[in-house]
């Protein structure tokens, strides 16, 4: 198992050396980074903690990183961890009262949705420094590309694979820990779980922080890779739902599910974009929506879940 994982990583890391076309490398980076966010979401989603607000954490992390770089000249190598930490702090601020006061189910989902919208609107409203709806670009620094984390495709591919491997490793580690059992019990019945000595709030906080951290990491790295930040694509209901759909399409109960889901959604978006172009604006979300509904109706455990059941 471990040997297979190392071999897979080696193959992935070597891929760009075999003259893979830039375009496919670009798709690969986008997939990997989106997979990190989806995997992060699924870490809590699979225990029944449904958040529609992961966009909030991504937005905070990405904008913190980019603003620190543009205004303070702080390298994203420090700005990114700082942004992710800030995103996790926001998650803690939001989640702790929710868990203490038993805001669960639909209520929790909608509170997190509000959080995502707050961040989106704040970014738009602070347009003097964030550029508002027009978005912003991190200052380009061709002389000092490494320090500015403007790595080009090869560098970003390796970074993305590394971060993705870290996310999967964390998933595997959580799966083997007592916390996974505790959280399963909590998702079945909180009171019963508490009565056998599980620290409900603490377990939920831990998984939420990890989950928010990975979503923020994947999302902010994606923004750094594209060198473009936009409130609609980094915060708010749109990105939050996209992450959830990615996780769900692939299957949020298996380790590789969210990755498969991310690959699927990006492949789908690209196919739709290439085949329809700008001729039929709207065809893409339409097909996307239809496929998602069909997925939920007929493959409720996602692509990977379906394969696992057939075996």
């Amino acid at each position: 198992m471990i040997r297979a994982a190392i071999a897979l990583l080696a193959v992935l890391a070597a891929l760009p050396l075999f003259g893979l076309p830039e375009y496919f490398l670009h798709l690969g980076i986008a997939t990997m980074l989106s997979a990190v966010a989806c995997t992060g979401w699924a870490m809590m989603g699979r225990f029944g903690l449904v958040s529609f607000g992961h966009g909030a954490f991504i937005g905070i992390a990405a904008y913190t990183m980019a603003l620190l770089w543009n205004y303070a000249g702080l390298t994203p190598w420090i700005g990114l961890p700082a942004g992710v930490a800030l995103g996790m702090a926001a998650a803690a601020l939001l989640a702790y009262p929710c868990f203490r006061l038993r805001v669960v189910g639909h209520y929790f989902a909608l509170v997190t949705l509000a959080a995502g919208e707050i961040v989106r609107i704040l970014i738009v409203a602070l347009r003097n420094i964030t550029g508002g709806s027009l978005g912003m670009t991190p200052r380009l620094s061709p002389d000092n590309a490494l320090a500015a984390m403007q790595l080009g495709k090869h560098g970003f591919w390796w970074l993305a694979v590394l971060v993705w491997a870290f996310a999967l490793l964390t998933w595997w580690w959580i799966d083997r820990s007592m916390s996974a059992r505790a959280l399963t019990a909590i998702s079945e019945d909180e009171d019963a779980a508490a009565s056998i000595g599980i620290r409900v709030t603490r377990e939920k906080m831990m998984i939420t922080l990890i989950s928010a951290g990975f979503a923020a990491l994947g999302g902010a790295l994606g923004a750094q890779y594209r060198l473009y930040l936009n409130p609609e694509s980094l915060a708010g209901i749109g990105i939050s739902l996209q992450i959830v759909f990615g996780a769900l399409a692939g299957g949020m109960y298996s380790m590789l599910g969210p990755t498969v889901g991310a690959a699927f959604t990006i492949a789908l978006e690209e196919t739709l974009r290439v085949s329809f172009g700008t001729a039929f604006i709207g065809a893409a979300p339409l097909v996307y929506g239809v496929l998602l509904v069909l997925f939920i109706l007929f493959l409720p455990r996602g692509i990977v879940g379906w394969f696992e059941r057939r075996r």
Partner: protein
Amino acid sequence: MDPFLLEAIVNGILLGGVFALPVLGLNLVFGVVDVVWLCYAELVMVGMYCVWFLHTQAGWPLSLAFAACLPVVAMLGLLLHLLVVKPLLGSPPITQVLATGGVLFILQGGAMLTFGTDFRSLGVEMPPMEVGEIFVSGTKLVAFVAALVSAAGLWAFLKFTYVGTAIRAIARDREVMPLMGVDPQRIYLVASAVGGGLAGLAACLLVVQLDVHPFIGLSFGPITFMICVMGGLGNMLGGFLAAFLMGVIISTGGFWWNTEMSYVVAFVFFIVVMFARPRGLFAR
């Protein structure tokens, strides 16, 4: 009192009237079917396009376009229930919510494909009225009164008709009612159609005030959900009152800061309320 502040408060109450109808519709569906329609604001959007198309493109009189909009959106609500919600009734709430989220994309994409991304205006405007020291938009006032009348109509329907009683009973206890000879599936259908119809009504009131475009649902959808949750999901009266509270908060927030910050204030207020009263402001 500062006349501008007074004007902001009055406008907030009028705005609350606009929020009230979608909130009632969502609450009705949630209370009865126990599913959150994430695409509710998009149903309203379809209704707005329907009125716009019939009036400005097909040349129907406005009243006829309004009359046609209601059954169209009610049908849409029925279809949504039959095709998407019904097969998922036994699944976890998350999958139900996400499926209606998929419908959100379908409706948005469909609207973009059919009507493009331009802002479409109905071109109906009534002169502002001067009441005492303040000006009130005529269209907003008419929409507000219409919203109140519709809410009263809904109340009467739930209170005095047989089907309405059955709906309230199902919302209260969905295990016992089937034993009393009520077929829940039929009640779900009725509730979905009425919920859709309310979205159609809201569309009629909104289309005279706002330009319609494919993403308009995102501008008032989230706030609608928040109002519902604040009033207590499924609690019609709570949602109705919360709509006015939220309207006034947004409007006066816009008076003190600006429109965007007023939404931030409203969302923060919502989160604080959730912490203070996790089951809604008016939970018993």
